[in-house]
């Protein structure tokens, strides 16, 4: 036996070397190798490899251009044969196209969505140098959070102390006032902003001076739309707008803010208007006040890095935190382009879509798409036998592996392009559905079809086609000519069956996971909405006062017969809102955070709170300074160990309450209520204190100006609301009536859950379609190829029942396997990862765990059954005749 030179090197040589030189070179190399091998095998090998590498130079490399030329010539042939083979196997082609189209529609949605999300704020020419300040604040141990807002002080410090910053702008988002235009009130909203805002962001100005428009106090810049709203067709620039408090001068008209901007406003008011007020307010200027709606944007110099600025900011933070006892605040720079796709922050200007959510949904979509691609591969390989001869003949004529692969790739790409047309239709159909999955989506994305979008879609379809066709191509390229052209029956049809079985199992496992997750999620979601929070939210309508005097409204509401009770409160609890204060009790050295709400004397009764000791508020103070009473829940008693947690004895005890707005104040506990859920259900029971709602609690900022809670007893809520709306109009003709049922607010608070359930539900629908199509293809193919066997069995006396059992047995086995994997996985996933976030959840029931399984299996059995029964009923004489 002669020794052989290293295989890999030889293959490499044969691949690149010119054919007319190859024989000589290979021969010489081999001869030298053999001679050396006798002395030292190792050295001979290395020498050989090294020599091969030495040949890799222009003189010896064959020209590759030629082979490409032939392949472009071949494309026409590829397309022709592909179209022929697609139309020859109509059923399988239809299954492939439909399957790919369904799964690709998800991909299209996702591409469009990501495209929109990533196009946010891209209109800013200096966008890559713009950063927003994020504040990470920890308030005296208890409570910490990350805010999109920051303190006024941070803005000032950056301006004063940090070099390398081209511009800084502070924005306050709470401007809202009613313009008085010829006797009509027109509500106007917007931001207070410093002049540098227009310098940092690329917001083109139609009229006015960009640099000075926002300099003078009481200047206002309107967008085109807002100008039309206020002045109609008249020229707005230079006019004066009358507001209740003072008049504003219109110093500029801006083009409307682009849809894909995270800042959205109809007017900008000069920051200098409110600056004197802020400068007087020590609380607004404090280091820890990061929670009021003050945003700081910085524009870095062209050659300053964000890291360099961050280091300096860190130094400032360290210094300030040393001197501050109330809170530790660390601020960081958030790039403008990451705002919309970054993590969710408190006080975000608008809801964002965290990247991680996009990745998760993208991952799920990828699974679905791959699943459809594998379907394609699966079915194409199943058709191997029918096409073996074609491939064999091609090879005999002289097609290389490359050409065979190319042909199958071309076929797959054609199929996927056809599928793209179908899935584009689906995309247009699904788009409105998708937009309503979550209310924020409507405001967040447009999903408009642009040229870029279409190009992305086509590229996506090509990629899907290549992925789908690649394996098929590789499989067929390997076909042995001798086997292919010999007798058909000698070709092993079911070669690689285990691979295809595995595919079916994987697809069904995924489908079952999706569908079971949807069901479990849905049931849990319904449980959360129906959860007993510790008070009654049914039929309570919360009306936003919007700055009106509550007395008048309440008086008029009492006349409506359906109104059974009226109370007032500052905020709606149990939907994620929170209002905090610090409580100190007796000897305790440190104060702790408790959550508060300001309520009137009817609030407890209207909401059915359980008073377990003491009573309702006794006094009716009219200023916050006169407040002397407090109602707490049991958790507060336990937290501070008031009267050893005994509710009866706790009544009459005194606590010291202080908050951001109020200095410390001694309050007497007059009542103790049963624990209830102040936060959302993913939070534990919190300590809560209620104090009396005095008129001076009505702050205008943040629209947090209080609510009127109305308990209704009505058969027809729509009609009653219409009545109440009339009442509202008689009190406030300007502002539109804003009211929400308590239960609806709760539902909204969990909207991200319902959105997630809808998304997974949608995916499960798609994956069940794809898995079913795949299974159908497999069953049809198997029964068709076994038709002769079935006929012979029938002739020998097998009953239809026997045959159905024989044909469906293996499929049932596959389905059972996937059920055995999917159900435990889903169950454990929910128990270990999802439901632990909700301490008050109910257990997963049997119905939702097995419901999906039942549905999926029914569909699968119908498919298997219909095909196998059809096969078993076939007339043997018809089938065997043609032999």
């Amino acid at each position, binding site marked *: 036996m*002669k020794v*052989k*030179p290293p295989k890999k090197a030889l293959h490499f040589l044969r691949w690149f070397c010119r054919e007319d*030189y190859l*024989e*000589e*070179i*290979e*021969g*010489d*190399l*081999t*001869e*030298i190798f*053999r*001679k050396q091998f006798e002395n030292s095998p190792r050295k001979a090998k290395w020498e050989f490899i*090294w*020599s091969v590498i*030495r*040949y890799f130079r222009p*003189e*010896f490399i064959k020209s590759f251009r030629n082979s490409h030329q032939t392949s472009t010539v071949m494309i026409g042939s590829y397309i022709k044969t592909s179209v022929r083979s697609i139309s020859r196997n109509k059923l399988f082609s239809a299954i492939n196209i439909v399957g790919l189209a369904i799964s690709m529609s998800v991909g299209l949605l996702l591409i469009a969505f990501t495209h929109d999300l990533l196009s946010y704020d891209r209109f800013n020419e200096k966008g890559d140098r713009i950063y927003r300040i994020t504040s990470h604040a920890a308030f005296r141990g208890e409570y910490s959070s990350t805010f999109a807002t920051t303190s006024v002080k941070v803005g000032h410090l950056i301006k004063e102390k940090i070099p390398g910053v081209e511009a800084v702008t502070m924005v306050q988002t709470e401007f809202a006032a009613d313009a008085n235009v010829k006797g009509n009130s027109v509500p106007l909203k917007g931001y207070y902003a410093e002049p540098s805002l227009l310098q940092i962001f690329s917001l083109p100005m139609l009229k006015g001076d960009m640099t000075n428009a926002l300099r003078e106090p009481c200047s206002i810049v309107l967008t085109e739309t807002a100008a039309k709203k206020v002045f109609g067709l008249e020229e707005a620039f230079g006019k004066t707008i009358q507001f209740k408090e003072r008049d504003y001068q219109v110093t500029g008209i801006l083009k409307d803010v682009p849809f894909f901007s995270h800042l959205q406003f109809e007017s900008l008011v000069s920051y200098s208007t409110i600056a004197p007020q802020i400068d007087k307010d020590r609380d607004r200027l404090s280091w820890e006040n990061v929670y009021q709606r003050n945003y700081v944007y910085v524009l870095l110099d062209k050659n300053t890095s964000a890291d360099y600025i961050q280091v300096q900011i860190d130094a400032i933070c360290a210094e300030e935190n040393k001197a501050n006892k109330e809170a530790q605040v660390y601020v960081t720079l958030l790039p403008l382009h990451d705002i919309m796709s970054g993590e969710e922050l408190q006080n975000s200007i608008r809801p964002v879509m965290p990247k991680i959510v996009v990745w998760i949904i993208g991952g799920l979509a990828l699974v679905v798409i791959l699943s459809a691609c594998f379907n394609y591969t699966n079915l194409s390989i199943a058709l191997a036998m029918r096409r073996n001869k074609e491939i064999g003949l091609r090879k005999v004529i002289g097609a290389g592996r490359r050409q065979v692969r190319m042909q199958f790739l071309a076929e797959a790409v054609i199929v996927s392009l056809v599928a793209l047309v179908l899935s584009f239709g689906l995309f247009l159909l699904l788009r409105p559905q998708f937009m309503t999955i979550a209310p924020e989506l409507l405001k967040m994305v447009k999903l408009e079809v642009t040229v870029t979008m279409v190009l992305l879609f086509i590229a996506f379809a090509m990629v899907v086609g290549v992925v789908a066709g690649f394996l098929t191509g590789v499989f067929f390229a390997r076909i042995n000519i001798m086997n292919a052209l010999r007798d058909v029956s000698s070709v092993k049809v079911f070669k690689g069956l285990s691979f295809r079985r595995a595919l079916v199992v994987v697809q069904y496992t995924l489908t079952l996971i999706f569908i079971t997750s949807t069901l479990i999620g849905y049931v849990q979601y319904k449980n959360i909405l129906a959860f007993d929070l510790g008070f009654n939210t049914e039929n309570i309508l919360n009306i936003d006062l919007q700055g009106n005097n509550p007395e008048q409204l309440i008086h008029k509401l009492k006349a409506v017969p359906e109104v059974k009770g009226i109370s007032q409160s500052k905020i709606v609890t149990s939907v994620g809102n929170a209002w905090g204060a610090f409580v100190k009790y007796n000897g305790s050295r440190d104060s702790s955070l408790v959550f508060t709400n300001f309520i009137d004397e009817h609030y407890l009764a209207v909401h059915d709170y359980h008073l377990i000791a003491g009573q309702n508020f006794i006094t009716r103070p009219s200023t916050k300074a006169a407040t002397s009473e407090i109602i707490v829940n049991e958790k507060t008693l336990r937290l501070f160990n008031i009267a050893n947690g005994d509710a009866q004895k706790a009544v009459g005890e005194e606590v010291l309450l202080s908050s951001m707005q109020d200095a410390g104040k001694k309050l007497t506990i007059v009542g103790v209520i049963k624990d209830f859920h102040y936060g959302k259900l993913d939070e534990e029971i919190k300590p809560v204190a209620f104090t009396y709602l005095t008129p001076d609690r009505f702050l205008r900022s943040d629209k947090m100006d209080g609510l009127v809670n109305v308990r209704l007893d009505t058969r027809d809520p729509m009609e009653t609301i219409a009545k109440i709306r009339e009442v509202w109009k008689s009190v406030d003709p300007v502002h539109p009536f804003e009211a929400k049922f308590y239960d609806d607010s709760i539902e909204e608070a969990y909207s991200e859950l319902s959105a997630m359930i809808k998304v997974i539900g949608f995916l499960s629908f798609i994956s069940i379609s794809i898995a079913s199509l795949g299974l159908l293809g497999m069953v049809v193919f198997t029964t068709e190829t076994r038709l002769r066997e079935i006929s012979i069995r029938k002739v020998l006396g097998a009953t239809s029942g026997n045959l159905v059992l024989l044909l469906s047995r293996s499929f049932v086995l596959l389905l059972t396997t996937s059920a055995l994997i999917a159900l435990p996985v889903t169950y454990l996933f929910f128990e270990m990862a999802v439901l632990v976030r909700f301490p008050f959840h109910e257990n997963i029931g049997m119905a939702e765990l097995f419901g999906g399984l039942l549905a999926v299996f029914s569909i699968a059995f119908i498919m298997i059954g219909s095909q196998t029964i059809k096969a078993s009923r076939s007339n043997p004489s018809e089938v065997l005749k043609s032999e």
Partner: protein
Amino acid sequence: MKIHTLGEFEELVLLMVAALHNEAYGVTILEGLEEKLKKKVNISAVHVALKRIEDKGFVKSRFGGITEDRGGRRKKFYVITALGKKMLDAQFELRTSIYKQIPKISFG
């Protein structure tokens, strides 16, 4: 007609082809050169030189028979052409004539 020049290594290979008359192919040329030069030569260098002098018309080639030693590949034999021989003669003459001009210097 363009007058081709001959590189140093090309000249050596051409000499070797001429010397090995009728027995010159890759491996024998390589071994001959290694023996005379007393150093390792890479076969690829020999092939490059062979291709070049063949392109210049100094040698011509033909395939020999299949031998077991070469994994079924044929040998490619090279024979010097008249032009090649003329080129060698010219080179030799040039060198000797210059050499002869060297004055007799004693390096005693």
